[in-house]
């Protein structure tokens, strides 16, 4: 179950945010603190999570303290489903 969430997130980030469909994103790779995803793209990611998994991420949670890699975001989604 969580593997499906992780792979869907990785695919969205690589294709829609980074525009590099072939890029492999590791589950523990830093996304926000490393600058890979900037604040322009964080809302796109939040909307994707909301539409795909039915889980809301609050505006104040869109930061590296709440989640900074795919594993942490997957856990956050799973905990709210």
């Amino acid at each position, binding site marked *: 179950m969580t593997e499906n969430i992780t792979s869907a997130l990785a695919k969205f980030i690589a294709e829609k945010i980074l*525009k590099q469909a072939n890029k492999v994103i590791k589950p523990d790779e830093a996304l926000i603190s490393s*600058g890979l995803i*900037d*604040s*322009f793209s*964080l*809302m796109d990611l939040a*909307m994707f999570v909301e539409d795909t998994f039915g889980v809301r991420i*609050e*505006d*104040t949670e*869109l*930061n590296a303290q709440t989640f900074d890699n795919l594993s942490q975001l997957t856990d956050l989604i799973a905990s709210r489903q």
Partner: protein
Amino acid sequence: MDLSSPLFLFLFLPVFLSIYLVSTQCLRLPIILVASVVFLTWGERTALWWLGGILISGYLLGLAIAKSKEKGNYSLLWLWAGVGINLAILSFFKNIIAYSDNVFARLPLPQNWIAPAAGLAVPIGLSYVTFQMISYLVDIWRGTIPVEKNFIAFSAYLLFFPKLISGPITRYKPFALQMQQLDPSIDDIAAGFRRLLAGFVKRALIANQLALMANAVFNLPTANVEPKFAWLALIAYTLQIFFDFAGYTDMAIGLGIMSGFRLPENFNFPYIAQNISDFWRRWHITLSTWFREYVFYPLERRRFRWAGQQINILIVFILTGLWHGFKPTFIVWGLLHGFALALESLGFGRWLKQAWRPMRHIYTLSIITVGWVFFRSNNLRFSYWFFRRLFGDTSELTLLPFSVSTPMPFIEPSFILALITGIFFSMPISSMWNQLRTSLEKHHENLFFPFQFFEDISLILLFILGLALLLGNSFLPNLYAKF
């Protein structure tokens, strides 16, 4: 009262700390509140009435929002009332009184009403208090924090004197958690003093020295300045605003640590940023975070289909400019950053990431310094002529008498030293220093003691030097206090 003033350093702070540290934990919050009220009213008694009014209205509106949420009605109405009151007061002071002296004279009011009102000054800390109040009310409405029913705790959060004048803008939740356990250790007090002294040194020895040149040029009625001095003034101002504001923030954070609070960081070497987006993750971090979470993200949830994100970025940066004042120069500064960020949000940002690293720095520093010209100029006409001077245009340049142009004709060694030191410490040297300190503390305890001793003695000597300048009446006020 300025945190760098002798009155604060040698009277207010020792008295506050003596009472605070010997008191029991349950008395510490009331002591903070009393100290903050004294700090606020010392120089400007009227500020207390305005901020007191904002405080009481915000406290009651917070309760109203929480109660309405329980009942399931009108909570949004109360929220908008709270946001509206705060924005109205902020706009009134910053944009009507601050920039239009005769506004009251135009109103059909009795003369005895107009006279005292015309003398109103912008209450210190207004921008910071109102923004923290708005975030508090929005967070209650969102349900991310509980309403604060203890008026002393609520007031201490908003008026806490280290962050009252120039931030950092602090969210209620992390502050409230810390209020429950106010027990600074000896190590906290020592670390707080080090941070306080470091901030003072940044302001007194770097920002203050550079201000002499920056002010001499930018305070001229017209940009009647030779190109080389225009460049020198621009570099001086670029460093001055950073060291003044970052120094003040260091002092605020240091005072927070001494009192048992960890206030958020506001700067992370902004001039090493590789694009403007990166710059805003490093410059005035708490303000950019506030705008991102309370304006940009809510706008992004309702983004227009065509160029929606770029429009939202421009809205946020026009508002950021206006937060500094309703002057065309601030709006142009905000728009410049907004346009750069809008471009970066399109393909330019991805292209820039692949570009040669020095190119990224040149691009970023160019936008930042061009922005500072608008930010510091008194009007757009000055900015226009200043840019012409930067490009070597000497037309209509007239030699000024020494009394007007000083200290431009002579570059003092202290200015050169401050300039070089400023450039050097704009780079992450202090981060490396802190890493060295941590490494010695963990792995080489025998070396750590002399290292710490050397650091403390150096800080104290630099503080004394800065104090000598302060007592020489050459100290300039905190730049961000006026915003």
